[in-house]
């Protein structure tokens, strides 16, 4: 972490999200993000969720998960305002070949637009599918956790706009205490499925934007155990190096065989 301020982040309590999308609007407005396809956006047609995904122009995305029985007599809505997780060990930052992605003094992860050249390595590396190309700037973009507002001592636009305090912003240490207390409260109220996702260091060193969920992570479109992309680097490189050595050797053996055959043919001719 860059020296300076205390690690800051988001704690999102999905149980109090009402799907109002105020966070999406506030984010779009503050960060001046363009509309999809110049405003000619098509509705999803099967959900109240028309944003559909996080990408270069959607840095907040309110997910609507419908869990209803076949006859719709029983069911529930799960809503979750998704955002970049600002991973403590960030895969995007790790693989960025231009150094465009940096860790700030608040322990957040930011893409520098003037350095990114749009190679898209970060998009495939992010375990959460958060990053996308912004069609206006033509560089990879995602939530900055309102770095500009943080530097001015302000709260991020999304959490400030959240009317139910589903999105909480603050020092990670305090957020974790708040989240653990809420889990305990929900367990006491009978919601035994409540658990925190990304609050500990089980994966990616922890998430600076973590969640309180009441179902399996996959239900919310979150990977159960996100991994660093470099986990494959050493085994892949070793296999390739061994293969390269084997193939070069095979070529040399073939050429030696050719020469031996020719020598033998010459000897036969001489005799």
């Amino acid at each position, binding site marked *: 972490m860059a020296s300076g301020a205390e690690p800051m982040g988001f704690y999102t309590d999905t149980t109090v999200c009402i799907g109002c999308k105020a966070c999406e609007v506030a984010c779009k407005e503050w960060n001046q993000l363009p509309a999809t396809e110049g405003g000619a956006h098509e509705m999803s047609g099967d*959900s109240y*969720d028309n944003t*559909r*995904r*996080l*990408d270069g122009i959607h840095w907040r995305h309110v*997910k*609507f*998960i419908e869990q209803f029985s076949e006859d719709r007599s029983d069911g529930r809505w799960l809503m979750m305002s998704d955002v970049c997780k600002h991973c403590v060990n960030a895969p995007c930052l790790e*693989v960025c*070949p*231009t*150094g465009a992605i940096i860790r700030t003094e608040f322990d957040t992860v930011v893409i520098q637009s*003037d*350095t*990114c*050249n*749009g*190679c*898209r*390595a970060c*998009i*495939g*590396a992010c*375990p*959460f*599918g*958060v*990053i996308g190309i912004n069609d206006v700037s*033509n*560089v990879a973009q995602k939530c900055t956790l309102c770095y500009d507002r943080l530097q001015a001592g302000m709260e991020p636009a999304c959490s400030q706009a959240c009317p139910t305090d589903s999105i909480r912003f603050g020092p990670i240490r305090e957020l974790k205490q708040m989240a653990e207390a809420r889990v305990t409260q929900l367990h006491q109220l009978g919601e035994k499925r409540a658990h925190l996702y990304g609050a500990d260091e089980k994966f990616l060193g922890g998430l600076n934007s973590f969640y309180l969920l009441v179902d399996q992570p*996959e*239900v*919310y*479109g979150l*990977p159960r*155990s*996100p*991994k660093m*992309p*470099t986990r*494959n*680097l050493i085994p*892949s*490189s070793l*296999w*390739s*190096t061994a*293969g*390269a050595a084997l193939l*070069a050797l*095979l*070529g040399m053996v*073939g*050429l030696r*065989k*050719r*020469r031996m*055959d*020719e020598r033998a043919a010459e000897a036969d001719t001489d005799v």
Partner: protein
Amino acid sequence: MSDTFFTASPHWTWYIILYFFIGGIAGTAFLLSSLLHLSNLTARPSDHPTDRPLIHLGYYAAFIGVAFSGFVLTIDLERPLRFWHMLIQNHTGVPMFKPWVPMSVGVWGVLLFGLFAFLAALASLSEERPSWRQLQSAPIRFLRHRGPSAVIAVLGSIFGLFLAGYTGVLLAVTNRPVWADSSLLGLLFLVSAVSTGAATMILLAAWRRAGHPASIRWLSWFDHRVLLLELLVLLIFLVSLGSVARVFLSWWGVLLLVGVVGVGIVAPLVLQRTHRAGSLRHHARAAMLVLLGGFLLRVVVLLSSNQIQVLGSGVVGP
């Protein structure tokens, strides 16, 4: 469900497919030309003088291939004029190099391989065109000497093999379905690149009537074994994917089975086997199928993964 299914596609499509295909051919054509060159260096001068045009063609193909690779890599960027940010940090001016990032290492690898391919092509042109005075200067003639040409051949071959294999490693070092679900993609792309490189050399020999018949037989002998190895690696790769291999229960699977395995591996193997001491035309026919299979392999691997993306709270597959 694999955790890789929750990621977004980087949309590496036709430019990158072309780069992986042409770059692989460039790297391995250089390797095979160098092996012939080094073999001839240690042979008697009278052994294979007819190999020289084939060696030169291989070096030209390597240089043209790597130049093309650099071009498509650049235009695939969303901001092509910032391609140099991969080499030099734009804020500090110091070299940009992350040894743990295949794309970062790859950019330097392409650059260095391009240098050796250029030197080898320059020396070849100097040898072929004695009347071009610009190519007969002392530094260029120096490149044709045994020592320097051997150094270029060895170092260029190392970078050529790197170029052929790192592309698969680059895909493996992501979090995308298929690509990151196995550690064998680098090996698979390497073996495929070597088979397409040998096929290219055979086609070049057929096109320009270059190369000693024994060298063509060597290339065909080599390609035959590499294709067998490719088939084996492909099978192990599919098994190593585990449940993610169900991605290929689709048209991509049909293309993989028919196009890559049937047309690109099995058919050339059969052709090579039935015409072991066959004419150059038979070798060339098998070589064309190998090239088609190598291209389709990259199409299947890249596009099948690209079609899987997170939408809403679910995952949309091919």
